[in-house]
């Protein structure tokens, strides 16, 4: 079909480099938190993972809307890629949160509104794949998945704002008025957010490319059989 794109290779290299720098920054440059100690460092990747999760679901909803309007297969492939990446990073977010919660809250898991709404969000996107599996006709599968990606995304804002609506024990680090971080911490935090966003773009490109190649292979196979 096509050769490995040069821009993608550059993006790969940039991602690896940024990840290495971010890791060094988190462990060497960011100051030790006064009360929480070293475990606070998981925060930089915890928030970044959840950010990528939300971003993935947003991209999926947008791709779904564009698919419904245009009907080209590319947008369906992009949507699946975005949901997959969003799902994986949301799970990473839950696991890293647990690692932080064990020493700080003295438990791996608690029935806090934030934790529950995030888990429900993950269940929505697991249901997304069950829906895809349940429908055989490719056109209909793509349309229904697009509709569900849009409907499912409606509950994501609640996840994000649940921390403000409910009485939650989950910390709010970024508010509209101030960020409760020292300048150094803020630099590292912003850098890790940026790094994960680049990582997201890289993975999205790879996964979309894989999806397109798989679709191409399928058409070739059909042609051989006919």
């Amino acid at each position, binding site marked *: 079909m096509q050769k490995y794109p040069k821009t993608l290779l550059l993006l790969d290299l940039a991602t690896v480099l940024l990840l290495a720098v971010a890791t060094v920054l988190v462990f060497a440059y960011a100051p030790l938190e006064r009360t929480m100690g070293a475990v606070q460092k998981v925060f930089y990747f915890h928030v970044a993972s959840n950010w990528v999760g939300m971003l993935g679901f947003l991209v999926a909803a947008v791709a779904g809307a564009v698919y419904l309007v245009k009907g080209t297969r590319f947008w369906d492939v992009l949507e699946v890629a975005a949901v997959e990446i969003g799902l994986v990073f949301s799970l990473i977010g839950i696991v890293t949160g647990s690692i932080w919660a064990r020493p700080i809250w003295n438990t791996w898991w608690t029935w806090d509104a934030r934790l529950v709404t995030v888990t*429900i969000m993950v269940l929505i996107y697991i249901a997304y794949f069950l829906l895809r599996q*349940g*429908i055989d006709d490719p056109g*209909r599968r793509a349309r229904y998945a697009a*509709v569900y990606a849009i*409907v499912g995304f409606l*509950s994501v804002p*609640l996840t994000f704002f649940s921390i403000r609506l409910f009485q939650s024990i989950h910390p709010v680090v970024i508010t509209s008025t101030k960020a409760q971080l020292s300048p150094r911490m803020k630099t590292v935090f912003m850098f890790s957010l940026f790094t994960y966003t680049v990582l997201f773009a890289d993975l999205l490109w790879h996964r979309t490319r894989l999806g397109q190649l798989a679709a191409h292979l399928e058409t070739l196979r059909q042609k051989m059989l006919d």
Partner: protein
Amino acid sequence: MKESTGFGRAVLAILWKDLAAELRGKELLSAMLVFALLVILAFNFALDLDPKTRASVTSGVLWVSFIFAGTLGLNRSMATEQDRGCLDGLLLAPVDRSAIYFGKMLANLVFMLIVEAVVLPIYSALYNVNLFRPGLLLMVVLGSVGYVAVGTLLAAMAAQARTRDMLLPLLLFPVIIPVLIAAVKGSAAFLAGSAWADVSSWVNLLLAYDVLFLAVPLMVFDFVVEE
């Protein structure tokens, strides 16, 4: 003007068709009702609904039974259209597709409200609490609208899948959580007689999701029934 009366008439025609079919068979309503009561009785044993715990869980028990019974109705409303090819007939009718959605949605809403209208007095009598407070009834109606609005859309999708009956609750329950949370918390607050300031955020959340869950299916229903 002419077009809008055509739309309204199409919606009413579909609503009427569903109600008439149900009135002749009464299969769905009786199944939903018995099921809702069974869920409440199951909770009675599972949670030991003595007067002290009851006060805090009443709204949760009610909503879970409404939602379970509602799933039966939603599954059925689209499956019957699918089975005998009735949906094709509806789609051939020269009306806006969203009229079909609205008609089906209103029919589902009527079924759900009937079930709720029977369950609420029975629950009141069985557990000796007065559930007929304007605030609670408002939450019941608003919550049912949101539930049925998105439920009708997802039921139309699940009816086309291989795993249809199994798929609907899996698709619907996580998506409906914002409505469910707002309805349960709001109902509980109204039952506890809280001040309006404590309840208003739940009512607003519920209203916001009702509007969203009505607007989005209206826009995308075309793509769901398209062949």
